[in-house]
């Protein structure tokens, strides 16, 4: 428990903590309240009298209705989900295999390949998006989900590999040796003995990779052009703003609905996510 005199507890713990929570969570509250507020209340000048911006007595579903009836929001949700799941699956398979090889097998250049993967992990998407856009166009992949399914693994695999290397290193060598003595081949020892032991790591890598690909923006923005192919972040950005006019109600409703799948995935696996996050930086 927090120790010390009452005023000390308030000054050094409760008040700073409350301020942090308000700062970090207020935008989400604002997103929710905006999404259910009628337009008449939304577009009222900030200095008009008798105006309480933090609450509404006339909640409405209009903005959500608009989103599903007037825009392709459900298609964007589906696209994002599909792309995130497939690219996560590809990255997990590649990352688990590569992580196993780099951490548990002896072969020439293992060390420098490991360093190479670490370096690619640090390459930001914004460094390469222009030549990639040109390549995607040349291969006629532009405006298809495959342009993202093939490019997302470039930032997911290094992360998965790096995380899995950490998990595999912690598994004792004897486990494999026992299996080999019992007659298992190397491949079987890996598939049936070591990988099952590392399942918590695979879950962490998977949940983290899923949120990363759900989050990705610049590749999706550059590679996709037709409205029905877009992902949620790009669709919301490009289709709910007409010139200078922002449809704030539907925008916030879209932002809210677009966040919910990640928030749900996250809430089920908080511990794994945190393990993935801290593991990803420590390695």
């Amino acid at each position, binding site marked *: 428990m927090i120790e010390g005199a009452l005023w000390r507890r308030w000054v050094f713990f409760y008040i700073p*903590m409350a301020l942090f929570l308000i700062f970090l969570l207020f935008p989400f509250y604002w997103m929710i309240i905006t999404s259910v507020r009628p337009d008449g209340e939304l577009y009222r000048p900030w200095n008009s009298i008798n105006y309480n911006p933090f609450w509404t007595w006339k909640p409405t579903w209009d903005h959500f209705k608009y989103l599903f009836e007037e825009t392709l929001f459900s298609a964007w949700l589906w696209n994002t989900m599909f792309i995130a799941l497939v690219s996560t699956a590809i990255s997990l398979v590649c990352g688990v295999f590569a992580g196993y090889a780099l951490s548990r097998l002896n072969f020439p250049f293992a060390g420098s390949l490991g360093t190479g993967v670490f370096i690619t992990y640090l390459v930001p998407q914004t460094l390469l998006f222009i030549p990639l856009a040109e390549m995607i166009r040349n291969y006629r992949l532009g405006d298809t989900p495959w342009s993202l399914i093939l490019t997302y693994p470039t930032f997911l*695999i*290094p992360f998965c590999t790096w995380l899995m290397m950490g998990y595999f290193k912690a598994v004792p060598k004897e486990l494999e040796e026992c299996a080999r003595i019992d007659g*298992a081949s190397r491949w079987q020892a890996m598939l049936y003995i070591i990988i099952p032991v590392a399942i918590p790591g695979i879950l962490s890598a998977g949940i983290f990779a899923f949120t990363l690909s759900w989050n990705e923006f*610049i590749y999706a923005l*550059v590679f996709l052009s037709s409205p029905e192919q877009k992902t949620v972040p790009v669709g919301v950005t490009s289709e709910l703003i007409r010139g200078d006019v922002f449809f704030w109600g539907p925008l916030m409703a879209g932002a809210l609905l677009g966040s919910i799948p990640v928030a749900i995935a996250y809430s089920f696996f908080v511990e794994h996510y945190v393990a993935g996050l801290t593991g990803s*930086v420590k390695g």
Partner: protein
Amino acid sequence: MAVQAITTTLGEAPQPRRQRLLEDERWLAFFLIVPTMVLLGMFIAYPFVRGILLSVTNSRVGVPGDFVGLANFHKIWNDSIFRTSVYNTFLYTGVTTVFKLSLGLWLAMLLNRNFKGKAFTRAFILLPFIIPTVLSTFAWKWMFDPTFSVLNWLLFHVGAITGRINWMGDPDLAMISIIIVNIWRGVPFFAISLLAGLQTISPELNEAAAIDGAKPWQRFWHVTWPLLLPVTMVVVLFSVIQTFADFQIVYVMTGGGPANATHLFATYAYQIGIGTGLLSEGAAISLAMFPVLLLVVVFQLLYIRRVETR
């Protein structure tokens, strides 16, 4: 269960040649690593080379272009908007990193105590980091809206301002706004990573220092901080790379405006390369990030190696 699985698959007796190859450690490693290397080679190494080749031509969208040497780099060097972007990027990275580290460390220290609802609080605190940045940045943009800003309402009603503040219309205020959003997004990452570091420090060390008469501030400075330094370094370098190459927050909040005053490397590269279709010039702008990124990565590699060998 695992043993059962082995005996059943052993009975099938796979093709001998494939099995012999997989029994060889090097071949197995080779097979396991090939998919990763192919994908990373095709979509990281190759585009990197393409980017360099692109930056020394005058290609536009649909036009291959000719070799022009370093003309693109020469052009952006004399471009005042590019110079502003360079300045902005360093300012943005520097200021946000200082705030993210100090606030993140503070929050981590708060979370490192035992209190009711700790797990719950920790889970909620990470939300800004996991929610898609573009979507949460829209909530901030709406909060900073010139006419309907809730922040203006708040400041007005506590008596801090008398007229409205046009957050996105003034270059300095727009820069401050995007810096605030970046800090908001990054603090949870710092806090949770540093909290993991704090939890590995044995409380006995602090207790021993307290018995020796060290004040709380001295305990932090002489015990906690040095032990936390390796984690801090890795987190900071990691965040510096991400922030330096940031795109989403500026793209949504200001789009580089007003009057191109808040561009970063990435948003300016996007505007030139994709917006106006000058592919080669855009490639040159984003490649201009590379020397700084390389420096940070090399530093990080050396630091990790030094910590590991100690």
